[in-house]
């Protein structure tokens, strides 16, 4: 297999007495869909947050395209082309969809107005509506605040935001958890199209059939560590579940890579 696009090595993260990550490793190869599986509390969200710079691990390394990077803030990850759909979506409910999609990277006017920090709201709305149409996000009133929108619509905004900005990796923390069947299928369509663009996707999900349908590879976490790696084409759901729950331990030779 090709060289990894992103590699996390030995990440440790404490929250007070709780050790969320205990030397966690994780690998993403270019353009793949890799599912990150694990029981509740296994440390999946913490790992995702460490990779995108939202939390800083106490120790361990993150390498991107072979070089060690210090993900000291979310901006660092964003500059590298890494975007995240957080489990809680991280939307500002009082802003409209465009405000959320461009939050932190607002489009300003050119010239003196831009220097004074004036927002080019029209351009941001135009691009948002364009993206929604392209991605099939059904939001009729792009100037309404997010607060009155449904779970599915919010999910659509968060996913669209990541897709607009990402150039290398999208990290999705349970992107279909809040969605119905139809909307989940919509997300999997989107994921496939992003993959076709050559962008890698990290997918946290509890939905094994969904993972087996869409992912290329699976990495399993348990108690803050990586405990298993599988090629989807060569693994069975039972095997994966056994490793997830700790019934079976996968050794390095068995890991199909």
């Amino acid at each position, binding site marked *: 297999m090709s060289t990894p696009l992103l590699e996390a090595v030995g990440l440790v993260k404490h929250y007070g007495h709780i050790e969320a990550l205990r030397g966690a490793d994780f690998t993403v190869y270019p353009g793949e869909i890799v599912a990150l599986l694990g029981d509740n509390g296994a440390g999946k969200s913490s790992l995702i947050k460490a990779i*995108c710079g*939202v939390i800083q691990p106490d120790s361990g390394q993150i390498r991107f395209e072979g070089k060690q990077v210090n993900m000291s*803030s*979310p*901006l660092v990850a*964003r500059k590298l082309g890494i975007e*995240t759909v*957080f489990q*809680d979506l*991280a*939307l*500002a*409910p*009082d*802003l409209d969809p465009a*405000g*959320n999609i461009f*939050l*932190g*990277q*607002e489009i*300003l006017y050119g010239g003196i107005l831009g220097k*004074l*920090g*004036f*927002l080019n*709201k029209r351009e941001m709305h135009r691009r948002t509506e364009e993206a929604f*149409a*392209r*991605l*099939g*996000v*059904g*939001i*009729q*009133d792009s100037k*309404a*605040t997010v*607060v*009155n*929108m*449904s779970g*599915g*619509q919010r*999910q*659509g905004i968060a996913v669209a935001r990541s*897709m*607009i900005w*990402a*150039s290398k990796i999208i990290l999705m923390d349970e992107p279909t958890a809040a969605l*119905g069947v*139809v*909307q989940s*299928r*919509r997300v999997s*369509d989107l994921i496939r*199209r*992003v993959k076709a*663009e050559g*962008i890698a996707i990290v997918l946290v999900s509890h939905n094994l059939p969904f993972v087996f349908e869409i992912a290329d590879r699976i990495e399993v976490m348990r108690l803050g560590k990586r405990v298993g790696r599988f090629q989807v084409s060569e693994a069975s759901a039972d095997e994966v579940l056994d490793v997830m729950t700790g019934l079976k331990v996968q050794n390095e030779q068995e890991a199909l890579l």
Partner: protein
Amino acid sequence: MSIEPPVNSEQFERGSELQAQDQPVIQNNIPPDSGAVSRLNRLEKFWQMLGRIYRTQAILTTTLLLALMLIFTILFPTKFPTAFNLEHLIIDYSGIVILSAGLTFAMTSGEFDLSIGGVLVFTGVMSVKIMGLVGGNTWFTILVGFIVSLGVGGLVGVFNGWCIVKARIPSIIVTLGTSAVSLGLAYIVSGGRDLSEIPPLLSDTLGFGKLFDIVPYTVLAAVLVVTIGAITLNLTRFGRHCAAVGSNIEAARRAGINVNWVVIRIYIISGSVSGLAGYLSLARFSSTTLAGHAQDSLTALLGVVLGGTSLFGGSGTVLGTAIGVFIPGVLSNGLIMAGIIPYWQYVIVGLVLIVVVYADLLRRRNRGS
């Protein structure tokens, strides 16, 4: 990146009219009848519009203000609607308008600033003291006083902001504290009595002067602050970040916004406009008016909330605030005309504040569910 249009367009949520014709939208239990769908869409758009108007409480507040003015015009046709009365009403409340414009930024970001009244008095005292040290009755003297007012206010703002973002003390406590500290320092520095050694040049120009003999400079200053404040909050990136911080601070952080710096800047703004208000108060009264601003923070707070800025942050309007402030203003003006003891205004302001906040809470709870 560019993505091909979806082949099979199921929507995340409600489909657009066009797609609704292609296939039934099951989630909404709408029959696949395009007429019904488009009628429903129109109804929905109408509701969204109504909602937006409802949310811009400024309209509600303006109506309330006009209603109050109408009542007092009917009750006191010879006293209330006179140019003299209205001009003085506006001049009297210019200072509070300025204070509340700064407070609007803090509250939009989900924080409080109760120090503004105290800072107003403190900056005034410091300004007089330094102008006394500089001496003379020149433009230079009053320019120094101006810089001291804004500078001292800005410094208190830095301190407030620092305590809130670094020490993580709730802003309501921090600013209540600095309010007491600055008022106390004002009394200590002034020796407990009002200072009135204000350069006459200051009171003659800024205090009583009028632009083109029409617009008092005090009012002009308030109009400027409100205009710049409204533009900044609505149209600039900084204003957007204030709202984002108040709406979901974690989302703002994850979007890469330097949240702490946003908050500190807000308190610098709030502190220095309080300093400006202090300077204007000096100019107008030729005195430090130590005891005259006890209610200012509260009145400003009421104006901000009445104007449509949420108490919980996320959205704010400086223009709404400027209108909102005049509700307690007109009310106390009218009460005085009615011969009611003016102290009733405190009772009313306090009660109205509680009611308005309750309404804001109800609205939040409704939309939360």
